[in-house]
């Protein structure tokens, strides 16, 4: 098929659960491509010589090559190509912000002057990953003989899983320490089931277990074991403890009953299954839920509220639709499901009754001024324009700071002013020799794929460190 014919093919429409139905369950929203759909979407790829999509991918997945494999019907080869650089394609296919990365650079989208017309790379990635999982086709790679070196990975989120996967394949022994009772970090407690089924996450972890990675749950480094003990028992340490420290607004009323951080709200719903009426973990099922913020976590919270039976779920965001950082797909799904969006509204107080229960909030009307440091137009209050919004549950989804437990336990770690660990850009090594870090503990709250990119860099550097020590020992 020539380029002109390929450009004429319309994007395949992803089949999805009907919005009216899906707000009553927690099952995944998009069903995924059938083989016929995947073939048709794969045929839209122009196989550009300069591969701008690969440039746009933080881990450099060989995108045109795996799409070619789909076109040829060789799914095993396709998933093999992805897994050379991306250990978690079933996750990334679902949660990466493709419209800002690979799909943003796609020439098909550019030809149509619409990123929405780009090849749906994420959906094709998901297709191959799901095919592999559903057909138990995961290939166990040939692992070199044990190097005799031991690596400790702190945290089983996307960064930690990547480090563990890369290093076990190079023959090192890897132990992953996880604070919670389940793996995945934010993939498990944060991202809802309807967007990332936990079965997908647990399958990735099961694969690593098959490769020999040892997972230790309910183990908090800095508490259950000291950092010194871990450094003594392991040849290298990777810290991927994430951005688990929720921000609050600092406005009056945040201690009222019915005010949640998004982390708590989502953890109750996801990790602890509070969406199930029979769960032992309670959650307040508000009738009118106000979510403060405009990122993916805000979308997840509002959509979770609907699934918990809210009659009204509102996203209250201080900038406009254009500045909203949420993925387009999450925004679209939220709108379809009936989430209300209140743009240019800044919460200034959370209101409550005499018994201490939240009753609503006061919002300040904003307008956009000049761009700020983030490049987005700065929201400015319009004097005298405030109003009240009724709500019986308020979810604060305005981001997270790096978790403080490890830095507190290892005072010699150099930190930046946001509480993140300072690392070498290329090796991810911290100020403490032999201790590496990556993901949100370095980046602040970022994305799964950036965390994985840092994990990959760190694994590379750890391998270099471990093998160079071996050579020195031989001398």
């Amino acid at each position, binding site marked *: 098929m020539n380029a002109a014919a390929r450009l004429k093919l319309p994007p395949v429409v992803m089949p999805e659960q009907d919005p009216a139905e899906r707000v009553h369950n927690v099952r995944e929203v998009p069903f995924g491509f059938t083989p016929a759909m995947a073939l048709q979407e794969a045929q839209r790829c122009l196989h550009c010589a300069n591969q701008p999509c690969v440039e746009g991918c933080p881990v450099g997945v060989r995108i045109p090559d795996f799409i070619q494999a789909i076109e040829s019907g060789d799914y095993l080869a396709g998933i093999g190509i992805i897994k050379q650089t991306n250990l978690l394609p079933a996750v990334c296919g679902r949660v990466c912000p493709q419209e800002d990365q690979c799909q943003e650079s796609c020439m098909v989208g550019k030809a149509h002057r619409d990123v929405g017309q780009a090849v749906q790379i994420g959906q094709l990635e998901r297709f191959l990953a799901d095919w592999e999982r559903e057909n138990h086709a995961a290939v166990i790679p040939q692992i070199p003989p044990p190097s005799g070196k031991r690596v400790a990975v702190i945290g089983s989120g996307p960064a930690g899983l990547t480090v563990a996967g890369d290093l076990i394949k190079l023959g090192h022994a890897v132990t992953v320490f996880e*604070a919670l*009772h389940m793996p995945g970090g934010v993939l498990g407690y944060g991202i809802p089931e309807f967007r990332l089924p936990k079965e997908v996450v647990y399958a990735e972890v099961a694969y690593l277990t098959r490769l020999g990675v040892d997972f230790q749950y309910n*183990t*908090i480094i800095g508490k259950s074991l000291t950092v010194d003990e871990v450094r003594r028992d392991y040849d290298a340490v990777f810290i991927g403890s994430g951005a688990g420290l*929720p921000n609050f607004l600092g406005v009056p009323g945040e201690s009222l009953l019915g005010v949640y951080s998004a982390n*708590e709200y989502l953890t109750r719903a996801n990790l602890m*299954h509070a969406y199930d009426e029979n*769960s032992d973990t309670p959650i307040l099922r508000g009738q009118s839920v106000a979510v403060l913020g405009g990122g993916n976590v805000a979308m997840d919270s509002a959509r979770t509220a609907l699934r918990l039976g809210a009659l009204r779920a509102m996203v209250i965001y201080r900038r406009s639709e254009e500045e909203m950082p949420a993925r387009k797909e999450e925004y679209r799904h939220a709108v379809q499901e009936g989430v209300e969006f209140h743009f240019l509204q800044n919460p200034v107080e959370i209101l409550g009754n005499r018994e201490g229960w939240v009753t609503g909030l006061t919002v300040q009307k904003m307008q956009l001024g000049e761009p700020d440091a983030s490049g987005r137009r700065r929201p400015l209050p319009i004097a005298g324009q405030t109003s009240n919004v009724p709500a019986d549950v308020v979810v604060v989804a305005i981001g997270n700071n790096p*978790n403080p437990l490890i830095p507190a336990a290892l005072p010699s770690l150099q930190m930046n002013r946001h509480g993140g660990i300072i690392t070498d850009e290329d090796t991810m090594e911290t100020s403490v020799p032999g201790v590496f870090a990556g993901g949100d503990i370095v980046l602040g709250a970022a994305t799964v794929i950036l965390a994985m990119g840092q994990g990959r860099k760190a694994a590379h550097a750890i391998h270099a460190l471990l093998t160079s020590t071996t050579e020195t020992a031989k001398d």
Partner: protein
Amino acid sequence: MNTIRRREELGRNVIRYIVDAPLVATHRKPGQFVIIRVTDHGERIPLTIADANPEMGTISLIVQSVGKTTCEMAMLRPGNAIHDIVGPLGRPTHIQRFGAVLCVGGGIGTAPLYPIAKGMKEAHNRVITVLGARTHGLLILEDDMRNVSDELIVTTDDGSYGTKGLVTDAIRSLVNGGAHIDQAVVIGPPLMMKFTSLLTKELGVPTMASLNPIMIDGTGMCGGCRVTVGGEMKFTCVDGPEFDAHEVDWDSMIRRLGTYRTAEQGAAERYDHECRIGLDAGEAR
């Protein structure tokens, strides 16, 4: 899985478990707590570590059955297991030689108070202990506390044992009798901590209180355990659990403990077990 080695009824619906948790046993210090899940579908609840035996790799947990989870736990016998135990969490108690230390325990709060009193005694403080309970049957660890105290006073609300009255009455008569106190530590039901704290503030005695708010992960991630201390938001799990009692916003903290009262009652009723005696949030330490 954490196997239960011993089970002992200390009082009405109050049970002491000796349970395997080797890493916690070797790393815990007085004042710290664990989070447990009784079963693989259970909720996560915080429990203070009452004692530990590092050689045996065991810790001691004292639980009062007040809701579904604690009732489910009460059914466990030696050889059964608690599905998950994670810890030790929180900052250890600041133990030093203060001089005379007043240790005030209310109900099940005596359990976490014991290792602190022991630590204070070992740091060469004069330890004066006041234990309060609603009734004699709910008084626990009297002998253990006596062993680490220079003086011990017991009060019961109904006068069934010790002096009839509240711990605050006993503290006031101690001070009226000329007792000098350099530092106080109070652990118990939130209302008891609030009124003890109001009294020690009036008496000018610096006071630490150990809080037990609603919590999920215990690592700072969820923010559910936030309390207001000195006008600032603090997370009990990583900044506490002990705070300057005179700076704690007790009314807000007590209100937040009631967040799920309706849901908890529902769960306990569904569970429908005889061990349910009431829902004094904060007593399930």
